[in-house]
Each structure stands twice: as C-alpha cells, then as structure tokens.
C-alpha cells in the first residue's frame, strides 16, 4: 500500500499559479525526495498530497482511489513537520497516542503500538516528559514516532531536519533511511538540501517554479542532468558551466564539468589559470582558479591534501568522458 499518483494537479493562490499541471507517480515503498530552491513549490506539493491544501485542478489518487476531495485525516498519510508540531501540553506518550486516540483504538492496542514505536526510536527513557523538556533531535524523534504508530500508507516529511544542527542532522538522516529500510513504507521527503536528497532518495524530483525539471535516481541526476538547472543544483560544489568559444569547440552552447572531474597539473593541461582561494577540508581540497579565459572562475576539487598557493599558475584538464554538453535552450545534448 502507498502508491500515490498525481494527475494534472494544479494549484493557484488567487491569480498566481504556483503549480502548473503536474503529473507524477510515486511507487509503493519508494523513498522520494522533492528538492528545489525555496519557493519552488515543493512544500505546496507535499501539502496538496497531505490534503492540507485543496488542489485547484487535477486528481490525486492514493492506491488507485481518488483522494482529491478526501480530508487529510482520511487519506491514511502521516506527516512530520519542520517545526515538529508536537502538542506542548501532552507528554511524549500522549503525543504519540493522539492519532490512535482520535481513531478510537482500544487501549491495549494503543499501548502495544506506543511501546513498539518508542523502542524503534529510543524514546523509552523520556516517554513521560513534555516536549518542552526535550532537545531538538528528541522532539523530531517524537514527531516521527507519532507518525509511525498509525502505520500509514505513506509518510510525508516537510524539511524535518532543517531546525537541527549539522551533526545531529547527519545522524537523523541515517535514522530516517534505516527506518525506511525497516518499514518499507512509501516516504515523500521535502528538502532544499541536495545532500539530503542525494543520500536518502530512491528517486529525486527536482522542482523549479512548480515545474518538474527532472525525475530520477540520485546517480542518474548526477551523471546525466537533463538541463542546466538540474546540472547546477545537484552536486556540491556546483558544476562549472562554461559558454562561448570553448563550448562551441565541443559542439555545444554551454558545457559543464564537475569540480571533481578536472585534473590539475603544475606543468601542462588544456586550460591555464591562476589559483585564488584554496579550501582545505583534509579529505578534499577545493581550488578557485581565475584567469582561465573561460568566463567565471572554475572550481576544482582534488582528493586529499594538495599544496597550491594563491597566485600559482596551474593547468586544468577536464575528464572528457564526464563533460556535459547543453544546447541553446539549456537542454542536455545526447
């Protein structure tokens, strides 16, 4: 259970159409991530699926049933919010029990499910505390607990990790992925963080201005971005994009090369430039190379610790197999 189909779904706020007709199928058990810059409509899309917003047109089907006009409570979906949205006046146990209580489930079954959720998420130690007494990570676990007890058809996550600090975020990312492996329930996850998208998703949906730019597995998107927007959005640091004469030489309007696909040499190579800022991360080194005659500065990523100083001359050679070519409309050339 948990196949969700969007059929020509549109959404307008007043006269502004934020989502033009959009088709998308989310398969049962899939981990789908909606990613895009802020204001791209990814949260709106999630809220349409949840039923918290009404669609302006089109149809939403859950497991084949038309759910377009079904109220949120009846869709069998559970949602985890960015702000956690816990009930501050209830203990952790009562928070988790709330959806079961609303469903009129008998007490014994409620307790059984709460115990199970608490042990999966390590909530047992603070099950009688109030949300105000918990840390951000613990609160987010409670919010997830409240979602899993319902055994929903699908989980909806609305930027659930963006209020957590960096270290905790990595840990929770792993926990959510493990939870998905364990429950095998459909999950739809909204984020603006492409690292979260790349690490968690089975399938990434890249959105811009309410339009789906590309759908695919993380590595599909990395290897073969359909257009310049996806090319720039997926991957960190960003793909270098070069237009003009150099691009024309490769038979394209714009060429793209990822920082990790450029070889650096002190003696010879295709492009000559001068090192600007270097960022040493230990495992990797990033160089910003200027004066290559290719327009903007190029970012280069080299594995390990490499010593180049500001002002040194370097030679750069792109890995020709990994060169991306785009036409005058910004679309990928075969």
């Amino acid at each position, binding site marked *: 259970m948990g196949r969700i189909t969007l059929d020509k779904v549109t959404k307008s706020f007043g006269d502004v159409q934020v989502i033009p007709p959009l088709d998308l199928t989310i398969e049962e058990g899939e981990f789908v991530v909606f990613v895009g810059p802020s204001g791209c409509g990814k949260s709106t899309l999630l809220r349409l699926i*949840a039923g*918290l917003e009404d669609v302006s047109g089109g149809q939403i089907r859950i497991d084949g049933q038309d759910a377009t006009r079904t*109220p*949120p*409570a009846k869709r069998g*979906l*559970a*949602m985890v*919010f*960015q*702000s956690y*949205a*816990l*009930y*501050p*006046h209830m203990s952790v146990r009562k928070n988790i029990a*709330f*959806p079961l209580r*609303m*469903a009129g489930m008998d007490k014994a079954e409620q307790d059984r499910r709460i115990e199970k959720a608490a042990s999966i998420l390590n909530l047992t130690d603070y099950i009688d505390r109030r949300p105000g007494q918990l840390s951000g990570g613990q609160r987010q676990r409670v919010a997830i607990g*409240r979602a899993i007890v*319902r055994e929903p058809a699908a989980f909806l996550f609305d930027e659930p990790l963006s209020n957590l600090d960096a270290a905790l975020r990595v840990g929770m990312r792993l926990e959510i992925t493990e939870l998905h492996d364990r429950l095998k329930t459909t999950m739809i996850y909204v984020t603006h963080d492409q690292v979260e998208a790349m690490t968690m998703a089975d399938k990434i949906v890249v959105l811009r201005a309410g339009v789906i730019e590309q759908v695919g597995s993380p590595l599909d998107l990395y290897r073969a971005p359909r257009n310049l927007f996806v090319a720039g959005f997926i991957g960190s640091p960003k793909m270098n994009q070069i237009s003009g004469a150099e691009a024309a030489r490769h038979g394209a309007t714009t060429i793209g090369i990822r920082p990790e696909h450029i070889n650096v040499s002190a003696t010879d190579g295709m492009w000559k430039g001068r090192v600007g800022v270097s960022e040493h991360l230990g495992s990797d080194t990033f160089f910003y190379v200027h004066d290559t005659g290719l327009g903007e500065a190029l970012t280069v990523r080299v594995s390990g610790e490499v010593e180049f100083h500001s002002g040194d001359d370097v030679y750069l050679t792109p890995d020709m197999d990994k060169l991306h070519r785009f036409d005058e409309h910004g679309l990928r050339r075969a």
Partner: protein
Amino acid sequence: MARSVSTRRKALNTAIAWGIGLLIFFPILWTILTSFKTEAEAIANPPVFLAFDWTLENYGVVMERSNYMRFLTNSILIAGGSTILGVMIAVPAAWSMAFVPSKRTKDILLWMLSTKMLPAVGVLYPIYLLCIQFGLLDNRLALVVILMLINLPIIVWMLYTYFREIPGEILEAARMDGATLKGEILYVLTPMAIPGIASTVLLNFILAWNEAFWTLNLTAFNAAPLTAFIASYSSPEGLFFAKLSAASTMAIAPILILGWFSQKQLVRGLTFGAVK
C-alpha cells in the same frame, strides 16, 4: 546594553509608582474606611482618616434592610451565565478568524469593535421595548443574553489575539492525526490557549459583574444584581454615606477577592505574546 539606574533614581521611581498606585486605589480605600464609620463621621469636615470609632453597625443595618444573598446570587448567575455563554460562542468564532481567515475577517473584527462605540443608551429604547414584548423585563435570562452580547466583541478580539500566537502547524498536525474540527478545538487548541482563555473569562466576568447600565434599567426585583443593591442605597438615601459605603464594599468584595487571587493569571493573560 543594560541601562544603568542609580539607587536614588530607583528609590524615586518606586515612590512615584506607589504614589500613583495609592491615588488610583484611594476611592476604594475611602469607601471601605467610610463603611466602618458612623454617619456623622462619614460627613465630618475635615474628614477623619483612621482615628474614628470603628463600627460594624452599617453592615448590620444593610443586611437587615435588604436581602444581600439574593442580589449576590443574581450577580453570580448573570455574570457567570453570560461569561460561559460568551466563551462558548467566542472560542469557535475566534478560531475561524485566526486560522481560516477570509478577505473580510479584518472588516468583521473592526465592525464588531465598532458596536462598542455606540453609547448603550442609544439602544435602550428598542431593547426595553423588546423586553416588554417578550415579557423579559426583570428576567435573569434576558440579562445573561444582553450582557453576553455586549462583551462578545471584546472577548472575541482577545481570544483572536491569543489564538494567533498558536502555530498553525500544530493544528495541521492534529488534522493529519485524524482529529475532527471538534477534536482539534477541544483537545489541542483549547488546552494550549488556557492562559489566554482564563484571562478572557476573568475579564468578561468582571465586566459583567460591574455592568450597571442594563442591569439597572432592565431589572426591578427578581433579577436585580449587586449593582441594583448599591443603587438602592444611593438614590433615596443619598446622604447616608456610611451605609452606601457598606453596601458598595459588600458588592465589590467578591470581585476584589477573585481579582486578587487571579491577578497573576490575569496579568499573564493580558500580556500574553507581548514578549516571546
């Protein structure tokens, strides 16, 4: 940056604050003091402050002459009834204005407040006639409804501001969790808004308790609350200040005590959300 305040400045501020506080409280204090004086001392010139023969005689006379308990019961029923009824209407009204506002919500709020700008006496005649028509003169139920309507705009406004402070995502979470509208209001919104609702209830109760225009004009005997009790000592016996003061003290005592015990809640409620 902390502003430094000298000790002398602080002492001066404290003195001024006490001075203003006493000035505001003085009429009440004077009423209470006068209620323990004899009639002669009450109108003595120059007035005596504390050095008089303290007496309970006035209270005895007042209790003997009028049925205090009946007035008190009426006050409690009218103020309590109108408050309960008002809150039952105002909570859903404020909910819809705060969480599902329409284009006209702001206008409706302003229009509701504008009804408070009309002097009450402007509608005395029609309301009085309506009460006669329906046989509702000197009727507690009529007063409950009228006082509820009078205070409704204020409590809707108050609750609306409190509800606006509650993050919408929590209510959306409740909706996702399967709560019906009733469940959402009953189990999630109301418990979270308890401080705000409590101070709204308290304020409404105090306003209804002290309301004198309608209670005096629409009651005679059966439904007369404590305001009528005080009034009965002011008009025919205007010169008997000590007895009037005793009646007044008895009328305001319950609300003073209630206010004293709930002042923390009241202040918290009234400044709710002012500082995050």
